[in-house]
């Protein structure tokens, strides 16, 4: 996926707005045929990062390179990047065609009418909006508008695409569809893309690699699976996964990590800290009497070896949401969520026995928040 020499490279990029540090010493690379997702909550510095890459603002410190060339001092137009925003920035009274042609008619482009027509047709076909070309932008649905906005970005075939939460304002169903289309589109274009979002599902499902940003700092960068399974800190662990990772306060007692209510969760190493936060994903808690979770165990024998002893509790919530079921209960001194594939016949109030897949547990230092 990432080529030997990265297409985009940020080194030590910092940006301040008055007393606020928007970006602190950001290091980031994107390959020439890669979809890099920057994931972070509101205020993490995601938009500032994109605007800095685009050249809409200059960093206070640090270097931005594209294809090995320092572009830090270059104007946006010299960088040849395209930016797509959350709010579909179209001219409402213009037709879709005119909106798509607009970037190609910019001064200095000198494209012939035939070339412009060919480019618009190419982009419209790629985005399946040919039938909308003569419609006024104000008459489009939200999803159609965002398709056209993306079309306006790709039509001039920039070197790099920057997308700022482009799916956030759309209906859930449309987001789901466009997510898949965007990945396919980028592969077709074979161009690098930096996609900014606060939505962990978007990040996990779309990214070739994820960069987790928080408070203007890069907390972790890596493959979606690595970040999900081996988060470098508590903050990252909580940022990925839906429902969020369960966190249990544990102490080492008689060689076991033991919850505040006395539940023995798993064996503990003899040395090291005596207190920790044990992180366990909702799909790695096993419902003892559920036929569904025993199926999961069978399919994952290596993990089954490290299962903790069961401990009983009462279910507080059972949510069937299609292909999976989410359950919640108070257990091991915390409010925990459990996710199982398929349906269960259990109801709130039912007694269940819970265990964790110990091999999948993560231990965090309760003070520093890092892996312990």
């Amino acid at each position, binding site marked *: 996926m990432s080529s030997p020499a990265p297409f985009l490279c940020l080194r030590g990029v910092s940006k301040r707005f008055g007393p606020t540090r928007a970006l602190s010493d950001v290091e980031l690379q994107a390959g020439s045929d890669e979809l890099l997702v920057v994931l972070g909550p509101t205020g993490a510095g995601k938009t500032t990062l994109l605007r800095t890459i685009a050249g809409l603002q200059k960093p206070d410190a640090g270097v931005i390179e594209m294809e090995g060339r320092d572009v830090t001092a270059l104007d946006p137009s010299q960088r040849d990047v395209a930016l797509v925003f959350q709010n579909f920035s179209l001219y409402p009274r213009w037709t879709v065609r005119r909106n798509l042609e607009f970037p190609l008619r910019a001064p200095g482009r000198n494209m012939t009418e035939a070339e412009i027509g060919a480019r618009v047709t190419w982009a419209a076909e790629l985005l399946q909006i040919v039938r909308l070309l003569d419609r006024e932008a104000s008459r489009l649905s939200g999803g159609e508008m965002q398709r056209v906005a993306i079309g306006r970005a790709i039509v001039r075939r920039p070197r790099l695409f920057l997308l700022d939460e482009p799916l956030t304002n759309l209906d859930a169903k449309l987001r789901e569809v466009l997510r898949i289309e965007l990945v396919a589109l980028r592969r077709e274009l074979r161009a690098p893309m930096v996609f900014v979002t606060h*939505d962990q599902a978007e990040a*996990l499902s779309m990214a070739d690699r994820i960069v987790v940003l928080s408070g203007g700092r890069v907390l972790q960068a890596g493959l979606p*699976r690595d970040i999900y399974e081996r988060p470098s800190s508590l903050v990252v662990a909580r940022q990925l996964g839906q429902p969020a990772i369960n966190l249990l306060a544990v102490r080492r007692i008689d060689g076991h990590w033991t919850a505040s209510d006395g539940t023995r969760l798993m064996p503990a190493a003899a040395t090291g800290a005596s207190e920790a936060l044990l992180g366990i994903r909702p799909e790695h808690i096993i419902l003892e009497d559920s036929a569904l979770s025993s199926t999961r165990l069978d399919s994952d024998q290596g993990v089954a070896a490290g299962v903790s002893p069961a401990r009983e509790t009462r279910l507080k919530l059972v949510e069937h949401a299609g292909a999976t079921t989410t359950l919640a209960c108070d257990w091991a001194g915390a409010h925990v969520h459990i996710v199982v*594939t398929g349906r269960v016949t259990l109801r709130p109030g039912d007694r269940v026995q819970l265990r964790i897949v110990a091999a999948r547990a993560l231990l965090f230092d309760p003070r520093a928040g890092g892996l312990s």
Partner: protein
Amino acid sequence: MSFLSLERLQKTYGDGTIAVRDIELSIESGELVVLLGPSGCGKTTTLRMIAGLERATSGTVRLAGSDITQLSPARRDVGMVFQFYALYPHLTVRENIGFPLRAARAPAAEVQRRVDAVAARMELGPLLASYPRQLSGGDQQKVALARAIVRHPAVYLMDEPLGTLDADQRLEMRELIRAHQLLSRVTTIYVTHDQEEALSLADRVVVMDGGRIRQVGAPGDVYDRPADLFVARFVGSPGMNLIQGEVVRRGTGVAFVSATGAVELELPLGSQASAGSVTLGVRCEHIHEDAAGPIAGRLLMEEYLGNACNVHLETAVGRLVMRTAQSTGYARGSGLRVRLDPSQLSLFDSASGERR
């Protein structure tokens, strides 16, 4: 007689656009009914007609036996919660929650008591003296919810109340709403475009499209037995896989033959047996990789979801999405074969789109 009923309710705008067409719906007391559909399907207009914020062009809204179609919003015993609920920024949380009671001229002692009670129930006690700007988005929504339920209306009307929250906050709020609903047994009508939210919250889901009701049913029914192709596609993430083909007789049984790729699948006996052009539907979790499976495909992409994976396949019968517990580990373009769980198939009439 049902508690709240909509009888042939219709909304036509001045330019002739029909937003809601001839809707019939009966809601029992204590039910949580979710109106689900894409933007422009008429769900919000329906809710607003129940609230009295939108005047019905024709038809009747009946609450507890009386016709309330012509009543002003204030005279209907309903509590509305909006998506972008504007809390009064200059009022404290306590004053915000108590606002509807004070507006109804309730005595100060009663306002205090009711606010304290709802705040305790929703764990807002420590925030009562704060101002909205000092609260997180999730806490602001909680305050909005508390304000809506402080009045004990006969019906709660909720218009995408979780729309601006992130996924974790939404789950937290769903738990809250559910817990609340179980406690109070007050009828709630809830509008959302998010099918997951609908399936997880509702006692019954009403799927709408183009101003019409497509299906009314328990979440499991709507998911497992969609009434038509629209519901099949809209409900579920991803929507149902759909394969064109026809039903043919095979000896004493029936089989499905795909329109492309000549894949033949035996159908359970007696199932919607009449021959003809059909669309076969199957959910992603009922497609399984199987070296001896009847459908050959090529891996297009995988959507990693953390706790699962959506595997997109290009096959002889069209594009299919299969749900797996983890990544298949195959490279893009790899060939693999799949089978469909025969007990989990839906059949739709291709011409009408309706379930057979």
